[in-house]
């Protein structure tokens, strides 16, 4: 049987300076944070990051690892403004490609279909086009003759998404209500990796209703790493909610300097030690699901 088992450390070791990295999840929800912390420990830099951004973007920005950010927003939902992203953005230390959230998914879908672009009206009349002159337009070849924005493909070298369950072959299940764009990150990337709350046998997916929660094809997946509570401090419904207190504490370090945060939560801590330090698996499991 195919065995794609790997570790979050090994996934982080696949990332090279200058690569384009796609990160699944949405804002403060189901981010592969255990992988992000491993990446923080490396000397990788000059990344182009594609993300519906949350603390993944903030941490990589604070660590000086981002050269270019392609984004529609960076927010932690219940903590709306991401302090580390704001600081990097205000200092002008990262190049930004700021696009509409819907354009972003079109870019992923173009890459997934091996197309150079997909057409849309979105972007016209806004500063998305004036601030991104590399985004071109194209005229319809049909009778309407309308001009469209040609949203360029967003193609990660590597994408990493966090799921609720996976087997060693790369079958996976997202049991929260929204899969976000993880399937599109996975299809768009040259190499897609999953981190997962638990590794199960393939039999666990032998159920028609469960199959409806499995949007990612296993033949997209290059590696599967176990990461229990691996989305913390973001949420991973229905297993656990956001750690709002942790996110606020993290956010405060944007002003007071974040080396203390790195020393306390990242350096010299593997995932098990990190989870123990934030209260243990039971504490994370008890974090209430967010109410919007």
């Amino acid at each position, binding site marked *: 049987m195919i065995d794609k088992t790997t570790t979050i450390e090994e996934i982080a070791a696949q990332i090279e300076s200058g690569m384009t990295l796609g990160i699944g999840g949405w804002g403060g929800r189901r981010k592969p944070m255990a992988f992000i912390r491993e990446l923080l420990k490396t000397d990788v830099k000059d990344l182009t990051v594609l993300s519906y951004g949350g603390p993944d973007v903030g941490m990589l920005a604070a660590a000086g690892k981002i050269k270019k950010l392609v984004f529609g927003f960076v927010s932690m939902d219940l903590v709306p403004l991401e302090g580390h992203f704001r*600081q990097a953005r*205000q200092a002008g230390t990262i190049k930004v490609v*700021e696009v509409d959230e819907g354009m972003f998914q079109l870019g992923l879908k173009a890459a997934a279909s091996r197309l150079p672009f997909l057409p849309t009206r979105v972007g016209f*009349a806004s500063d998305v086009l004036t601030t991104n002159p590399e985004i071109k337009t194209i005229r319809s070849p049909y009778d309407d003759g309308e001009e469209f924005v040609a949203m360029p493909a967003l193609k990660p070298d590597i994408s990493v998404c966090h799921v609720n369950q996976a087997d060693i072959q790369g079958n996976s299940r997202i049991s929260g209500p929204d899969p976000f*764009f993880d399937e599109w990150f996975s299809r768009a990337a040259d190499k897609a990796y999953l981190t997962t709350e638990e590794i199960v046998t393939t039999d666990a997916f032998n159920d028609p209703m469960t199959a409806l929660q499995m949007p990612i094809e296993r033949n997209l997946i290059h590696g599967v790493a176990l990461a229990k509570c691996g989305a913390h401090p973001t949420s991973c419904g229905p297993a656990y909610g956001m750690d709002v207190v942790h996110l606020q504490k993290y956010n405060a370090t944007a002003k007071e300097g974040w080396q203390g945060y790195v020393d306390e939560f990242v350096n010299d801590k593997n995932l098990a030690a990190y989870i123990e330090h934030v209260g243990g698996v039971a504490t994370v499991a008890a974090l209430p699901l967010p109410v*919007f």
Partner: protein
Amino acid sequence: MTYSLAELCICAAAEAFRDDGEYMVTSIGLVPRLAASLAKSTFEPGLMMTEGEAYLVSEPVPVGPRGDYKPKIEGLMTYERVFDIISKGLRHAMVTPVQLDRFGQMNISIVGDYDKPKTALLGCRGYPGNTISNANSMFIPNHDTRTFVAGEVDMVGGIGYNSERWPAGIKPPFLDLRRIVSNLCVMDFSGPDNAICVVSLHPGVTFEQVQESTGFELAKLDDLAMTPAPTEEQLAVLTTLDPHNLRATIFKGNPAGVPGGT
């Protein structure tokens, strides 16, 4: 009957959704959320709404801590489907931009210079797509010249009636800005060339006061009405939709709807 300024604004904002039929409403923030919920609970029962995350619900979810209340799910609305329904146009968004200009262009991205902004906020989010594809309304809690800016907003996320920005000068076919409710008045885009036009003033507010608080010239209706007071039915429904009275926190000191009132 007494009512608060917040309740006046919620009821005025609910009117934005009149005749929307089965549109999906996306309402960001407490006043837009309560406005959409009130519209659905009273005169537009066909509106589609979510519980704020991913499920469509058959009745508006009360705001704040839910206690034993369980959202009444009637369907699924993942973010991917949100973008599909935006493209189709069957949606009305109500948002609170940080800046709004005379064209109705909106900004929630940055304040100041784009490359090195004084203040970085969220990013343009879905504003470019929302505004070019479906109906949009706004709630502005602080009607002042910092929000209603002179010139253009610092980053045009939400597009507006600015022909210089339209492709080949042609109005995007589905651009549809509807209603603006502020703490001072109600406006729409019915002025010359879709200029922002004051249609009613909240009790005790003058047009001159609104104009002074706005960074550009406003149109106004000849017979400027007073914003209608909430009805007893509306106020009763609001106590159900907002059981913890979060609406009392919308404006500092929770002022009365009629100045000097209680």
